[in-house]
């Protein structure tokens, strides 16, 4: 099981000839991901790491990809996402950061209209350990198991996942939702999928300041989620009105504070950690009672 991605993924890499595209094509292959084609307009006929490069998604469809990862630079990313969606790809993972918000909100809504799942933008991707990785997560931190992780942050998630694996707690799927204000997939989507997934026994959410995604997730947990949920929220000491690295990490007009999110989670019965390293210990303690 696992959510959204498994060994059936046949991946297309858009922007495969760039620095990131090349590097992560190699890393994803080493993880075991089945990469069937790459696209870079104007570079058709070449190859990267033994993967055939095509000029367009339409051309690449001969290799029957069913998912795409986008490394295309921000000014051209919107075009690349829409090209994938128009060719019938139903899972698109957008790694690119600094995409204009109006571009992102357009392709996020277009994906919904096309009935596709879109993860990101500005995210590290998605991994189902032992099955596949569509993203830029380091390969060695994962372990197969039964905890689902959804996060708005990259390295902080690596840190938490690494601690989980070291403590012997494996993961069903880890998904990076992205640090932008508008993302294709949010905590509620991930919670809903983890709740349905038989392999997932517990869920970890890594949130941060900005927006109300955590508050909405808390409400959803209270109503719909039977599995235990653990959370960490970054930005308890962040000031109002400052963007803390991520475009989406900003407290505006008193909304989006860490304390509001922590309170909402606690009210919904979610255990909230003070340090990222506490999560693994909390789960280990509780594992006996599940």
């Amino acid at each position: 099981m696992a959510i959204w991605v498994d060994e059936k993924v046949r991946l297309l890499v858009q922007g495969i000839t760039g620095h990131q595209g090349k590097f992560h094509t190699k890393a994803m292959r080493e993880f075991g991901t089945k990469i069937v084609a790459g696209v870079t307009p104007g570079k058709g006929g070449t190859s990267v790491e033994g993967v055939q490069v095509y000029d367009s998604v339409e051309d690449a469809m001969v290799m029957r990809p069913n998912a795409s990862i986008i490394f295309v630079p921000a000014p051209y990313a919107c075009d690349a996402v829409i090209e994938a969606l128009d060719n019938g790809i139903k899972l698109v993972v957008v790694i690119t950061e600094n995409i204009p918000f109006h571009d992102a909100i357009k392709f996020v809504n277009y994906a919904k209209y096309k009935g596709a799942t879109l993860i990101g933008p500005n995210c590290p991707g998605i991994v189902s350990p032992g099955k596949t990785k569509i993203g830029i997560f380091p390969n060695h931190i994962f372990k197969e198991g039964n905890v689902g992780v959804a996060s708005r942050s990259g390295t902080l998630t690596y840190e938490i996942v690494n601690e989980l694996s070291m403590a012997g707690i494996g993961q069903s799927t880890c998904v990076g939702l992205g640090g932008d204000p508008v993302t294709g997939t949010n905590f509620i989507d991930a919670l809903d999928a983890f709740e349905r997934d038989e392999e997932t026994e517990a869920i970890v959410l890594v949130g941060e300041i900005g927006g109300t995604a955590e508050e909405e997730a808390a409400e959803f947990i209270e109503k719909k989620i039977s599995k235990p949920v653990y959370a960490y929220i970054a930005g308890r000491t962040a000031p109002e009105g400052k963007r803390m690295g991520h475009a989406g990490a900003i407290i505006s007009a008193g909304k989006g504070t860490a304390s509001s999110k922590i309170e909402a989670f606690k009210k919904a019965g979610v255990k909230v950690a003070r340090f990222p390293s506490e999560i693994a210990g909390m789960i280990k303690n509780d594992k006996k009672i599940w």
Partner: protein
Amino acid sequence: MKLLEYQGKELFKSYGIPVPKGEVIEKKDDLKKISNPFPWVLKAQVLVGGRGKAGGIKIAESVEEAGRIFDEMVVKGVKGEKVRKILVEEKIGIDKEYYLSFFIDRSSRQYLMMFCSEGGVEIESIAEKVKKMYVNPLVGLQNYHLRKIPQEVRGIAKNLFRLFIEKDCELTEINPLIISNGRAIAGDAKIIVDNNAIYRHEELPNEFVELSSLEKEAREKNIAFVQLDGNIGVIANGAGLTMATLDALNEFNGKGGVFLDLGGTDDVEKVKQAFELMAKANQKVILINLFGGITKCDTVAKGIVEFMKERNISQPVVARIKGINEEEAKKMLKDYVITANSLEEAAKKAVEVI
């Protein structure tokens, strides 16, 4: 990027949204050149909210009075923000005041138009009276949306939406939207342009009034850098991890003074640039928290060591480094920094060393 009121009003004019007659000045002498009849409204050009109550908007009946107000605004500032420019406008008779805005609504992933028949006050105070209309980004603003707001402001709403889209805005807000003798006029202009889209708007002022000079320097170098009010400078890789490190300091009664996200770099030069910025920020301690999943720890360590040899900085540096090649990194750093094995230990040591 936040625009000042006068910059926003220039944009309004080019989009056919009426604004009061006015001129922006930087020197007191320029007051003499203003041809508008009295009374004048002097508006300090600052970004901070609640400007009116804080003495940032005053009325003058003569050039002399305007001069006194000018001096006072420049000396006092508004809520701690410096006043560099003042907008001098004609006074508009007010029959009614509305509120109108467009912004990107994160939870619905839609555009949101907000309208209120009571403007001129802070929007939070009228929250329950605000009409909210969602606008799907794939199809844009429709006439049925416009029919829900008064006839006399529909044209302005249409133009404001066009500006919102064409200039890649996160927010366009008119508060108050004044009705004067049957005419609608934008009394104020609040515009936030998406930083990610500035590259495609050479016509816009590239000023970043909201950033400190160090923050501007960091922006040019593509480093996420935020000045805070503590004395421990934090460098980490990734925004979430950097915030988590600042939060950990707080657990040990320390306070972060700089947020610096190194991002996914193992470029030695970029590491040195980050330390250069940190040195300028005058922190008592520098705390590095690195999780090298793909970033190589030894490359980052090399940058740190090179910087410390070249610059001989006086502050202690506490480093917690984990990930690829961490043993090599630790060996390279051991004569230069205080090392720690976990985030908690690093935060504790950084607070203690002050």
